[in-house]
């Protein structure tokens, strides 16, 4: 049952029928929840088993569409939840109460929770370099984690109740994750007023739901001008421009090429992102790197809106091919027009159609996430909060 579900999801991913990080993230979480729920291991079983389970499915899902980082993020988030649960249930049951409190807001009260857990989870850190770390027990395997070793230690005492409880809590945790993912955009929108001021000129490119919410939220209190670049080859900027106009925002639609020229008059650039890398770099729809550079040149703040589920512990090595998705050239050129330049004799025209740009962290001024605004250099902290270091490499 669960397998069929996963398979179905995987095929959809492969065929790019499920696209967009929000949808994907949500669906991934749902599928994983299903998987865990369907897990019918004879109790008492261990967190380690759940972790392996999730990891296995996780790898498959990630392989299905490597360019969609949200999948990996959610998988890691789930793993993190399991580990936390394991630790808390390992610590004597009295602790459960405040653990629940901790779990209540993995997004909000994150830092407290994570710091609490870091001690327990014993991530590889300088301070415990000399502590007995799993690396020494099982060299060469990252999967080996303290959480597991601990859980192993507690194999005896763990009762059916405990294991059932663990599973229950984990599912609870995932549900919260899902809700978090679902309404991140409203959380982001709430912060609009802090950033957009009266009579400002906001430049943006392309379209994302988050962006629209953000601007419309700002529109409620402030009147500002929006400059929308069309965002070739998707041209979803046109749509956004319409929507904004409907909202009563004074909107100017420009071509992507006009961004630089426009930038001089702009107070702030606000854009959506596809993913945020561990170094604070951003994967965003193609064309934004250019915009970011233009902003830098004119010292215009470049603000990126992104849900925390887009936060990936992966570092960008070779972002422009590895993490990029090359679409069909039809977006760039009309087949009919080019079809006579398509045979090798006449020499074919190369028409790469990359979907994303990688924007290095130094070009980004601010991330506005559902967890608040952050500096690119702070991203690694956020990551430390939401992911267990053991899971960075799946």
């Amino acid at each position, binding site marked *: 049952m669960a397998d069929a579900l996963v398979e179905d999801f995987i095929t959809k991913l492969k065929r790019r029928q499920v696209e967009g990080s929000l949808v994907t993230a949500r669906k991934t979480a749902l599928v994983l929840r*299903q998987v865990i729920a369907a897990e019918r291991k004879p109790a008492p079983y261990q967190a380690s088993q759940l972790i392996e389970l999730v990891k296995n499915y996780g790898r498959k899902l990630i392989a299905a569409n490597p360019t969609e980082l949200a999948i990996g993020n959610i998988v890691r988030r789930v793993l993190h939840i399991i580990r936390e649960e394991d630790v808390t249930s390992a610590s004597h049951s009295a602790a459960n109460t405040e653990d629940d409190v901790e779990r209540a807001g993995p997004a909000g009260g994150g830092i407290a929770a994570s710091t609490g857990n870091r001690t327990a989870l014993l991530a590889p850190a300088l301070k415990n370099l000399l502590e007995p770390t799993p690396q020494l027990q099982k060299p060469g395997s990252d999967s080996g984690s303290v959480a597991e070793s601990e859980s192993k230690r507690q194999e005896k005492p763990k009762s059916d109740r405990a294991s059932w409880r663990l599973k229950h809590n984990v599912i609870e945790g995932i549900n919260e994750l899902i809700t978090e993912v679902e309404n991140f955009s409203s959380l982001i929108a709430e912060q609009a007023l802090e950033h957009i001021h009266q009579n400002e000129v906001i430049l943006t490119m392309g379209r994302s739901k988050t962006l629209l919410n953000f601007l419309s939220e700002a529109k409620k209190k402030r009147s500002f001008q929006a400059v929308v670049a069309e965002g070739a080859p998707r041209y979803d900027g046109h749509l956004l421009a319409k929507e904004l106009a409907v909202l009563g925002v004074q909107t100017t639609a420009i071509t992507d090429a006009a961004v630089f020229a426009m930038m001089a008059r702009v107070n702030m650039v606000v854009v959506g992102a596809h993913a945020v890398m561990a170094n604070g770099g951003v994967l965003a729809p193609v064309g934004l790197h250019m915009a970011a550079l233009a902003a830098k040149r004119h010292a215009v703040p470049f603000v990126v809106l992104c849900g925390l589920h887009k936060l990936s512990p992966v570092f960008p090595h070779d972002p422009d091919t590895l993490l990029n998705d090359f679409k069909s050239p039809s*977006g760039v050129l009309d087949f009919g027009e080019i079809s006579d330049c398509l*045979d090798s004799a006449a020499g074919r025209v190369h028409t790469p159609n990359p979907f994303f740009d990688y924007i290095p962290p130094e070009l980004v001024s601010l991330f506005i996430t559902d967890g608040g605004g952050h500096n690119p250099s702070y991203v690694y902290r956020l990551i430390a909060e939401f992911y267990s270091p053991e899971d960075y490499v799946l």
Partner: protein
Amino acid sequence: MAPRKGPPQEVADEEAQGPLQAILLADSFAQKFKPITLERPKMLLPVANVPMIDYTLEWLASAGVEDVLVFCCAHARQIQAYIETSKWKKQPNFHVTPIVSHNSMSAGEALRLIDEKNLIRNDFILISGDTISNMSLDAVLAEHKARRAKDKQAIMTMVVKQAKPDPVTHLTRLGNEELLAAIDPQTKQLLLYDHGKESGGREGSKGGQYLGLERAMFEGRQAVQLRTDLEDCFIDICAPEVLMLFTDNFDYQHLRRDFVKGLLSDEIMGNKIYTYELTREYAARIDNLRSYDTVSKDVIHRWAYPFVLDTMFGNRPVNVKLGRTNIYKEEDLKIARTAVIGENTVLGEKTVVGERTIIQNSVIGSNCVIGANVRIYGSYVWNDVKIGNGAVLTSAVVCDNVLVKDKAVVEPGAVLSFKVEVGGGFRVPAYSRISMLAQPMEDDDSDEELEYDQAGVGGADAHKGSDDEESEGAAVVPISWNPEEVGVAGKGCRWAMVREGAEDDEWKQSVAPIPAAKLADLAAAAAEDNSRDENAMDVSRSARASAQGDEETDEEDQDSEFLKEVGGTFRRGVVEKIKQENVQLEINGLKLAYNKTFAECASGVFKTMLVMTLEGKPASPAATLTALKKLLTQWGSLLKKFLTGEEDEAEVLLTLEEACEEKPTRDFGPLFAKVAQLLYDEDVLSEEGLFQWEGEKRYADESDKKYLNQCKIFLTWLREADEESEEESDDDSPLPAKAKAAAAPVEHSEDEDEADVADVSGEKARVSRADSPESRSPTTSISGDHAGSPGPQKAKGSAGRKQAEVEGPSVKRDLSFQLQDLEDDEARRNGETTDEEEEEVLSEVGSAGKRGGALAKVAEEEEREGPTTLPPSSIDYENDGKYLKGSASSEDEETREVRQPIKHDQAVDRRKSGDSQSVQSRGPDESLRDA
């Protein structure tokens, strides 16, 4: 519950259109990939390391198709096995059901079979397993359904893609002629589909410059688009009726050639085909090696996204890494540091590449071992291939397990089939095909019509082949290999060009890029065509002229059609002993349908009688007469019924005269008088009729009077029988048809020579010449008869020539000859219009094609005779044979021989496309006028 809550668009399409079905033909019913296809079905050949059929299935699956019927014929087992083991079996809500038939020779039969099984409930997608696309079916299905809802007759929607409007491009891309379609821009209805050879239309004509449009096409339309910028994607959305149609018309074989043409040509059923034009999405069919090359490149260039290698679709769970400039690398490769992997290249998993090797624009399969210093450009190397050091491959196809030894050179366009071994240092010549299986002896004609039977055979024995390892009959493995063919210690035997005598054709459909020279030629040719078209357009005169031209030719065609029909009906009547009344009824029906006069019915019937009498091969003239008498006594009354007055009766006699001059019934020449008398005796004819005829003949020139003279005695006898003055013949014919009829052919035969020089479209020239002998037959016969009296004959010849000088190029004479020869009374009426039509003929001066068209036309006349006066049967051919003996010219004979086997099919197709051939480039300007 989880999956339900997906984003709307995914759930939507499944729910919307119930179980959507597709028929996937996993057999191309052609053999353009021979000899490869002898060992593996085309559908399983890899395109960029993924079997073609996977692209198709994956696409269907992702497009929301839930039930796919895979029709396997050749190598059915391999395909079945593949599907069984593939992931397709495991897919939820996607069912693949193989349907196996070992004896289906064509798409038509396949569909008939499927219809029998009645597995198709509602609208379905008809597609061939070698089609690669990424289009979403929702839109087209919606359109289709909407149309169906309005009009049940809109039974098919054909998907087309816009490409560059340029025959050269078309050739370089897909290796076949450009498609020419007439489409109603409002309704998107397809009005004309012409795919050069592909659709059996314009014999071998390339480009769209000779084309006929029936006026019917324009009726009730504001505009009609003539488009040459479309590629047929061979993706059809069909209503279930389509299958029925196939079952009803058992002679439908080819989807386009027969079915589409059939539908477009018959107005009676009124079924309509519509088109759906792809804008952004991609779709193409791999029809031959050239398109194999092109489509592979398109896939590598990601036109088929998301069906590109790095999305891991299909069956192989190999993840592919995409590098810059479209370099796809699969897992664990061993590439030497000094090797250079150029752009647009795919490297299959576990492949080893040696030092200093250069690979560009190529696809390399899995587990290949490529030595050092190898050069591979634009080639397709499949799995487990070993290539020795210093070998060079250029635009070649190298199948599985091939061994190319050191320093061997494979020249452009070469095909090395499975397990072939090329000896060290050997040079495989360009465009050669080498296979482990010897080439079957009965080798095929370049003639497209033959492809079926051939394909059938190919398919059939190939199928046997899949049963026991070596396919027998067609392909036996020789014991010893010829070093000439594969070099020392090589294995495999060289195949002659798959399409006989088509060395010059080979380059068209090989993977090798078209040689610059050829391209230049093509371009030049195309340019010329265009310019010609243009000035044709410019010069082409008064709409009236051309319109009239249409009429004439229309009628002309209808006329011959009609004659055939009548003949057929009558013949059936005689053979099957049907009641006269019924036969009469039927003929009346035809008369109405074609809106003809009784006289024409009569002459039709009579002609048939004459033909039939001679079929009995009567020994002596006497016998002939008795035979005819028998017929007349039996059916004369029927004939009589159609004769309303003297004019009609005279008409009959004129028919007889004609008959005496035309080949099949020439034996009546000497018997004319007797026959006339016979008619009189059987009182089919009255004195009045005879006198009427005589009167008409009065002012005719000598040659025409020859039969009159024959009858003198008889007539005088009649006159004596009852005194009648002969003064009442008032009909004036300035220049009776027969004169020109006789004159023209004399010129006509000359045109041949001019044709040789002037004709640009080579094939056309060939075809028309092949046909011409028949068309020339009247000439020969006449001259034969007039051996005795040369004087007047000369006169006429010179007259004809004078005419020629006046009128300019001979082209027009052909045409005028056509028109008048076909319709006497027409010609008579047109005493004055002839100049007019000559004018409009002038307008097409210079289009050699026109001559071609005209000649082909002439050919048709003859063609039509063949199969239809008799139902297709051996008699027909014997007959021809017989008359060939009659007409001495020997080259006639052999041309005829070649044609015999195909005569029937051709005729069938021709009849479908005939009308479109008769009218030349008037079509376009007319359309312009209307548009």
